[in-house]
């Protein structure tokens, strides 16, 4: 085994993932190559140092925040379900209702001079009168 191969296999070696024959070849190389020995030890120290990094803690109110989000999401879901489910029934009904309300509002606006005066614009039908 040469130095390049040792370098490629160094992580596997440290994680005990080499088959015994490969591990043996690598160790035979380490016995005669101080450069690779140093590389392996530095990598071992690096991995150990990474593993010793501090645990990062959440805030003390983390659990209550999670439940707050669950509850908030639950309210949104219930509102959504109330508005739109079952989809095949409620959505067509709501579209129809919206259409009817729009038509009614349009009709009332164009038929009513009082509403037009309040809006500051002449009623479209009045504006056509000579």
């Amino acid at each position: 085994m040469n130095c390049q191969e040792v370098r490629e296999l160094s992580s596997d070696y440290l994680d005990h993932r080499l088959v015994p024959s490969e591990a043996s070849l690598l160790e035979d190389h380490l016995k005669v190559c101080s450069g690779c020995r140093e590389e392996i030890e530095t990598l071992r120290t690096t991995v150990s140092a990474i593993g010793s990094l501090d645990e990062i803690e959440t805030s003390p109110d983390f659990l209550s925040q999670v439940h707050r989000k669950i509850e908030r999401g639950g309210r949104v879901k219930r509102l959504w379900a109330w508005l739109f489910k079952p989809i095949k029934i409620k959505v067509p009904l709501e579209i129809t209702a919206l259409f009817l309300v729009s038509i009614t509002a349009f009709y009332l606006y164009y038929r009513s001079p009082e509403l037009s005066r309040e809006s500051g614009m002449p009623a479209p039908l009045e504006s056509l009168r000579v």
Partner: protein
Amino acid sequence: MVSAQDPDRDLVQRSQGGDRLAFNQLVLKYRNRVMGVATRMLGDRVEAEDLAQDVFVKVYHGLQGFQGEALFSTWLYRVTANSCLNRRRRRKRESQVTQVVDDPERVFSDRASNPHTLLERKELKVFLEKAIQALPQEQRMVLILRDIEGLSYEEIADSLGLELGTVRSRLHRARLEVQASVKEIFSLDAKRSVRP
């Protein structure tokens, strides 16, 4: 059906049955681990905590669909990893770490030469954290899961949806990157230890 080998089997099944206390115990058990992954992936503690909360909300809603095809912890890490990667993609701007340490000499402000003492120094830990932050996200995630969270290669592959070979190569490259960064620190430390 949750696997009998899953150490969280009891808590998961009780949570699936609506036991809020069981779900709370799962949150308390894993919250810091999720927080650790999120913080090191996002580089921002506030955002990481928000993401960690979202992870457990997803877990809460997804528990009914969890069939035990993997360990609960593996599934949790999968949700965490996907959430982190999605959040990073949505960000308009990513925080960049362009310079890991201004002056490595500063790390050796005292005469201690014992590498183990060195490792305990807060400055070195900050340095390591920054070196990890500087990794590409694919390598960073694998390194965090393996060397900090202690997952096996197989669990990482399962969590991230990767081939074992990909896990292996990303981990190796990540370790070499971090090693290159710390090598200078260790060599400076060695030189100081032999000074008369």
